[in-house]
Each structure stands twice: as C-alpha cells, then as structure tokens.
C-alpha cells in the first residue's frame, strides 16, 4: 500500500495528510486528522452523513478519493464555529429549534445548509428541502431541520 502526501486547506489552515492512496476524504478526516464530525452512515454516497464542503460545494466525503483533495479548500463541521467558540447561525438555530435530535445526520445536514446559505441567503422552503434532499434523517421528519435553516437565514440577515 502506497502512501501519498496531499496538501490542502482544511478549515482555513494549510495542512498535509500522509495517508494510503486508496483512502477516501472521509477516512482521512476521521482517522488522520481525528475530525470525527463527518460520519460514515452508509459509505456509498446514499445518506449524506459524511457531507463536507470542497471549495464551497457539498460532497459525500465517503466517495471522494483523497488524491483529489490536493490544493482544495475543505470545510468540515469542526470549522464552522468561530475560533472563540461562537456558533455559526446554522448551528445556533439547530440548537434553538430542535433541528438536532440524535445528531448523527447533523454534521452533514448543517454543511449542506451552509453550502445553500452561502449561495442563497434567503432560500424558499423548497430550496431548503432541495439542498438537504441528499441528507437522510430518521429522527426529525425534517420539519424542524427546515425550520432551523430558515431561522439561520433570518439570523444571518439580521447581522
């Protein structure tokens, strides 16, 4: 098994990963960087629990070959809050509006929401549902997740 050096930007910081070439981005994040926020809910791109942002776009990290990360900007849930601990409005809204129950889908859900709000700060409900349609949740029935994202959009607008 060959290792490769991959240099990229992780949550705003330049990093290098030295990992087996066959690893995915998800495994690299969880095992090399010990950032366990992104989860392996299915491993084959069918649930969205591993969603992270690459150059602002949401992707399933479980299917992303680690060599392709070279030079890219990766953002994970761990990079969302401010360095002083202040939560991103999306994180805050999920806490306030019960958008999180068991929390397993939450990292992926929030990152999908982040990708949406960066491009579309005032989304309609259908935009929100579309943006998270690749993130499966069993606990919430999605209702309060959608409400939380809408709440976050309003919180951002007020700032």
């Amino acid at each position, binding site marked *: *098994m*060959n290792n*490769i050096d991959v240099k990229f930007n992780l949550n705003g910081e330049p990093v290098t990963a030295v990992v087996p*070439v*066959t690893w*995915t981005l998800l495994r690299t994040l969880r095992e090399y960087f010990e950032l366990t926020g992104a989860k392996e809910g299915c*491993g*084959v*791109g*069918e649930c*969205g629990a591993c*969603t992270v942002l*690459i150059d602002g*776009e*949401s*992707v*399933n990290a*479980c*299917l*992303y*070959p680690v*060599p*392709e990360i*070279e030079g890219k900007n990766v953002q994970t849930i761990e990079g969302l809050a401010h360095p002083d601990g202040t939560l991103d409005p999306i994180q805050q809204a999920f806490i306030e509006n019960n958008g999180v129950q068991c929390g397993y889908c939450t990292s992926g859900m929030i990152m*999908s929401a982040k*990708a949406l709000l960066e491009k579309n700060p005032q989304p309609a409900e259908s935009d929100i549902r*579309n*943006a998270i*349609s*690749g*993130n*499966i949740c069993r606990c919430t029935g999605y209702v309060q997740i959608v409400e939380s994202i809408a709440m976050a959009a309003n919180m951002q607008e007020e700032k």
Partner: protein
Amino acid sequence: MINYTYHKPADLAEVFGLLEQHGAKAELIAGGTDVMVYIKQSNHSAEALISLRNLDDLCYIQDNGDYHIGALTTHRMLEQSDLIQTELTALYQGASQVGSIQVRNVATLGGNICNAAPSADTAAPLMIMDARLVLQSSRGEREVAIQDFFVGPSETVKEWDEILTDIIVPKPKGNFGSAYHKHSRRKAMNLPIIGVAIGLSLSAESVIDDARIALTVAAPTPIRVPLAEEYLIGKTLSDDLLKEAGEMASSPECCSPRDSLRCEGWYREDMVRILIPRVAKEAVANANKKDIQ
C-alpha cells in the same frame, strides 16, 4: 483486495500514455460516485485508477451551431445552466435528478453515459436529441451516435483505451420542446423505475413535425421508440392521439420491461402507456415556454 495507484493526468496525451502503460489493468475514474462504490462493494479494484477530473478543457457547455457539452461537465453544472434548462429541458430534468446535490457536484455527464446503467437519467434525454458521442484514443477520434452506443446493461461500444470527450447535441428545428419524467418511489435519491423522455415540435396548427420518444429501464439498454414516433409525426396533437402512442410504446413490439427487485414488469409497462401522454404534454408546454421567453 483494494490496492491501486492513482494518477492525475493534466491532459489527454497523458491519459493515453497512462492507458498505454497500464493497459486493461487500469480503470478510468471521473467523479467517482460510481467507481468508488463498485470498488467498495466488490472489495476489489483495478491496479491503476486514471483520474479524468483535472481535464478542465473537457468541462464546458457551448453553443457552436450545435450544442457541445464536455464529458467532464458535472450534473450540477448542467442543472445550473440556463441554456440547458431552456433549450435541452429533458437533459436538465434528467441531470438535476441524478443522486443528490452531493453526487451531482462531482459526478460527470461522461461518467453517467459510460457507466451505461439501463436507468441512466441522462441517457433518455440525450437519445431523443440524437446526440453524438466523440470518443478519443491514441489511435485517433471517432463519433458514435448515442443510439449505437449502448449494447447491454453496463455495456457500450467504447473500447477500453477510449475516452469520451465531447457530447454533441444537434439543435432541433422548429418549435421544439422536451421533457423527462423519472418515475420513482420517493422524491430524491432514486434510480428510476421507468424513465420517459419526449421531444416534440409542433407546427402552428398543432401538427406534429417532429416526435422523439426514449425509454429507460424498459429494455436492456436505453431505447428509442420509432414505431410510436412515426405514428405521431404528421398528425394533429390530441389526447386520443397521445393515448394511442402510449399504448403503442408500451406494447411488446416497442419495449420489454422486466420484473426486477425494484419493480414488476407489468407496472413498468403500464407506466410507459400512462406517462407518454403526460410527458408529451409537458414537452409541448416547455416549447411554448421558450416562445414566451
């Protein structure tokens, strides 16, 4: 055993060089949303993965008289293109329903075509447009009509050392509109039970000048339905006419939907019959929308 070397060629010449070097032991990978899944599920990989992801030159949507779409264009780019949505509506509808946004952000049109699933969402839309596929290799270049491209489930005429580089979509004439319906059990993250793409062009008196019908998951490969198309051409659009076309298209002469884990054949057959009139009307509406714009 999963063990491969990973190569990121910067241009086609490098790709051909790598293919030459590794031969049939290499596998091409673009977005990875099919290839990475196969590797995981079979617990087996080729010796070398040759990534096409960095061939930026093959990522474009252009109007040069015909439409040209680079094979490395992602489904998300197609989904977000006004041109595609207006002019190639069926392709827009197909591309925007592949997987999820996370998948569409990396999965490429070329990958969807070459993976050649009988259910591929871009296949039926491209078939009704009589798309032509440009295949390149170290031996040269050739064009294959999409109707000749698929030979079986996951089987195409593409040779192991060829790369799909360009998808040419001839501009349809007249007042042409298209639509694609993906029949599935829920509203996201599906493979279709049946896929129906229709392109129609009407004259001023609602006479059908041009009719194209393509089906997926109704045969071992995506298919056109020439019998029903010919039946429609030259006739005046009406509910009864469309109903007859639907009956014709669902007959054994035109398609052979089978029982599978996902759905029974009888239901697929019924859906071909029911959906054809609906999708046809949507195609006509899309043509009219263009007029208004």
